């Protein structure tokens, strides 16, 4: 009996102590749980009305209807555990470029891996992060970084070590379809990548990167017409060093081995990269490197950057990277002319560089000169002047033609601004003038065509000190002159921003009218109206709406004469903010 009591009492004490302990843990968990981020839903509607009926000279440029969802909270438990979600997805596919171009009906796998959708969860405890779902992982400039991969991996950062790995699918197999719109089609691509590195932030980074992508040839039927199943590996070594006084040195060297068509025969005459991939007759192996050295400080930066991409350098991580080039650029930024308050009055940002193609002599030699300058001077409390100059020159032979290609683009801009104020308001008048010249040589006749553009913009912005209202007014004149075509545009616009309902409502409206004329044709007319309404329903809930409409009526430069269109776009969405920064109780 006594024994039963003792056991019963023991169980009671255990249960009650467990319950109280659990309650205590729960309380502590609640106390330590913080949530930030947002979630919401947005609807976008588009309308286009063209006249006369049946005229298709202007095409729709947005989806008729679209619904976008976002769920991006971050849960913080204690000091060390975070659980961020990154769910961004849309109901209707709108892909025009890349592997999903043209797709209208997608299966679940295609929906999950479509680049317009992201489903990522990255739980992290201290230095260990698990990567689940869609991830855009940039290991380095030459290995991987531009594409999203759906899969699983980790990012471990014990002390100064870095161990990263990810394995997944960057695109699903998509069948070619010849209808309207044409679906280009794609092969399913499996990717994996890893990085081993040692890093002390702000001091040094030494990393070895590996990234591989391989297409599955049987993953689409019918397969794409113009795209071949491919396979590629890139290995890169990164070395960054930051020393005192803002001096830095960054370097990366990479080798890519890429098979342009895995259906081509295997060969022993070319190099593969065993055990990662075998050589086919379409396998190429080339190198790339980049180097930058410089110094950064509060009032003076200077840096020299050079980048080399061999003609056969290709990675699956940067699908749009153009190879076969050598760039070198000198950048600088400095402040000058201190006033009596020891504030700098001049800010200059400039760069000059050259890009050379034809590094491997497999193409015609092309050379480009690139120069940019932006010079801002604050003369006094009233006057300032911004001057900018940009040059881009391109030269190349043109095969069997008598003259080479030579295209030179020059832009020169001046922007003086005058401000003054009284007790009630501040006034700002800004004039911006830009002259743009584009010379292009004809490779048959050798004659150079000049394309000259003048743009002048005058803006007036009054700011009231005691009113929640901010208008602005501007007029713009644009003139482009090229043989056989002269374009004139004249625009007047005005905008007004204000708050209402105890600053819970923010409103902004804009009205713009543009008169245009091409050669001696009759003028065309364009009217744009837009408004934003952002309403804060509660501290956490907001309703944001953007409406715009665009009416354009052509002159007699096109047929049918009198053609016009009315375009409308609306976007409205509810956003809930988790971002309380308060302890949840």
């Amino acid at each position, binding site marked *: 009996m006594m024994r039963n009591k003792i056991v019963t009492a023991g169980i009671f004490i255990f249960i009650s102590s467990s319950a109280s302990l659990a309650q205590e843990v729960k309380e502590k968990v609640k106390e330590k749980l913080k949530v930030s981020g947002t979630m919401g839903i947005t609807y976008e509607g588009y309308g286009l009305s063209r006249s006369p009926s049946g005229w298709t000279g202007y095409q729709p*440029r*947005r989806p008729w209807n679209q619904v*976008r969802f976002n769920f991006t909270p971050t849960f913080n438990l204690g000091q060390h555990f975070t659980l961020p979600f990154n769910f*961004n997805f849309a109901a209707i*596919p709108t892909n*025009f*470029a*890349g592997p*999903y*171009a043209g797709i209208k009906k997608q299966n679940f796998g295609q929906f999950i891996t*479509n680049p*317009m959708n992201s489903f990522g969860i990255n739980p992290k405890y201290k230095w260990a992060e698990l990567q689940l779902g869609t991830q*855009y992982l940039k290991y380095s400039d030459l290995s991987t970084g531009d594409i*999203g991969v759906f899969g699983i991996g980790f990012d471990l950062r014990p002390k100064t070590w870095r161990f990263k790995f990810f394995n997944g699918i960057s695109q699903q197999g998509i069948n070619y379809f010849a209808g309207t719109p044409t679906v280009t089609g794609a092969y399913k691509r499996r990717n994996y990548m890893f990085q081993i590195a040692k890093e002390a932030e702000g001091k040094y980074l030494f990393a070895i990167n590996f990234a591989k992508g391989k297409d599955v040839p049987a993953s689409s039927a019918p397969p794409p017409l*113009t795209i*071949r199943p491919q396979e590629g590996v890139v290995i890169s070594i990164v070395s960054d060093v930051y020393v005192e006084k803002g001096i830095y040195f960054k370097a990366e060297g990479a080798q890519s081995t890429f098979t*342009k*068509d895995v259906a081509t*025969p*295997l060969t022993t005459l*070319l190099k593969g990269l065993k055990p990662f991939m075998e050589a086919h*007759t*379409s*396998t*190429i192996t*080339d190198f790339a490197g980049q180097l930058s050295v410089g110094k950064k400080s509060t009032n003076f930066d200077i840096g020299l950057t050079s980048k080399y991409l061999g003609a*056969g350098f290709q990675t699956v991580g940067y699908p*749009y990277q*153009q*190879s*076969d080039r050598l760039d070198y650029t000198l950048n600088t930024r400095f402040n000058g002319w201190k006033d009596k308050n020891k504030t700098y009055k001049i800010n200059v940002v400039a760069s000059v560089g050259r*890009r050379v193609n*034809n590094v491997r002599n*497999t*193409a015609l030699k*092309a050379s480009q000169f690139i120069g940019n300058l932006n010079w*801002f001077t604050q003369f006094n409390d009233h006057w300032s002047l*911004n001057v900018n100059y940009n040059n*881009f020159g*391109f030269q*190349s032979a*043109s*095969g069997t*033609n008598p003259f080479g*290609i030579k295209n030179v683009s020059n*832009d020169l801009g001046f922007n003086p*601004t005058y401000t003054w104020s009284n007790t009630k308001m*501040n006034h*700002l008048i800004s004039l*911006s003038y830009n002259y743009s010249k584009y010379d292009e040589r004809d490779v048959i006749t050798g004659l150079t065509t000049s394309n000259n*553009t003048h743009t002048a*913009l005058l803006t007036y*912005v009054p700011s009231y000190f005691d009113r929640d209202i901010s208008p602005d007014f501007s007029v*713009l004149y*644009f003139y*482009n002159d090229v043989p056989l075509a002269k374009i004139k545009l004249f*625009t007047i616009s005005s905008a007004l921003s204000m708050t209402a309902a105890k600053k819970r409502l923010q409103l902004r409206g804009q009205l713009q009218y543009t008169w245009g004329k091409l050669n001696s044709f009759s003028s065309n007319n364009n009217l*744009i109206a837009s408004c934003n309404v952002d309403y804060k329903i509660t501290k956490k809930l907001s309703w944001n709406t*953007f409406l715009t409409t665009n009416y354009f009526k052509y002159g007699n430069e096109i047929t049918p004469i009198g053609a016009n269109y009315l*375009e409308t776009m609306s976007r409205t969405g509810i956003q809930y903010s988790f971002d309380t920064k308060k302890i949840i109780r």
Partner: protein
Amino acid sequence: MKKIFFSIIAAFIFSTAAAQMINSNLILTAQPPAQLSEWGNRREVLTLILSAPGAVTGQFKLKAEMKTLDGTVIGSADLAKTPVFTGNSSGTTILFANDVIPLEDMIFTGKYKNSLQRTGKLPADNYTLCVRPVRPADYAPLGEEQCKNFYLATTQLPILMKPYNEEVLNAKTAQTAIIFRWTPVVPRQTSPVTYRLQVFEVLPAQSPVQALRSNQPLLDKEILAATQFIWQPQLSFAPVDSNATRKLPTFIWTIQSLDKEKKPVTQTDGNGEGRSEPLIFFIDPNKNIRKNQ
């Protein structure tokens, strides 16, 4: 008597050999794809038509050589490894690039081998391809050598000029007109290139390339032969959400270069879509005003 006997024997051998001589006709595009492995994917690039009086019924191999215009051999088929063909009993045998120059059996020399290894292409130049059918056993000629000249040069996609990368445009100006410029396709193509200019809006939660690969372009314009376009956006640039990482409306633009059949001018280099490396630009509603306020 002995002379007569040898003459008869010689005449017999000659007539027998003549009966087995194979006529060949080599058809090769004057400017084939720079990527040699691509020749096999396009039947129109190289066609070899073989025929003989009667029919090409025996077995033969093809001795293929690539030369520079001065006659220096830069690559040749390893006859010990090349496939043996059997003539078509119908009288005519038609072969294509994969048969005539099987890259897995082609041995290139010096800088040409190095170039092929690194780029899959030969240095830009004029070349000659010579092909001759030979007997499999001793590689004795079975017909005349056929040679054709061709020119190789990699097609270079346009490089985007303006707006330059990460240029910040004044919203007031950009709402009226934005000038786009790019370099032409090099070398100049035999027919005018259509440049498809596309501008995509980068939404707040997107990376620029993600936007390019997933959004409907705000501008999708085909421009024939010219390398400049003035866009009247007719847009009121929507403000960026205050929570967004990018504080300015962001756009990404690219050029897709298309041939006369509206196919990408190059399908084996880079992305296979003939799309140039994209650039991004920003629209700043307060450019040149913020500094003064």
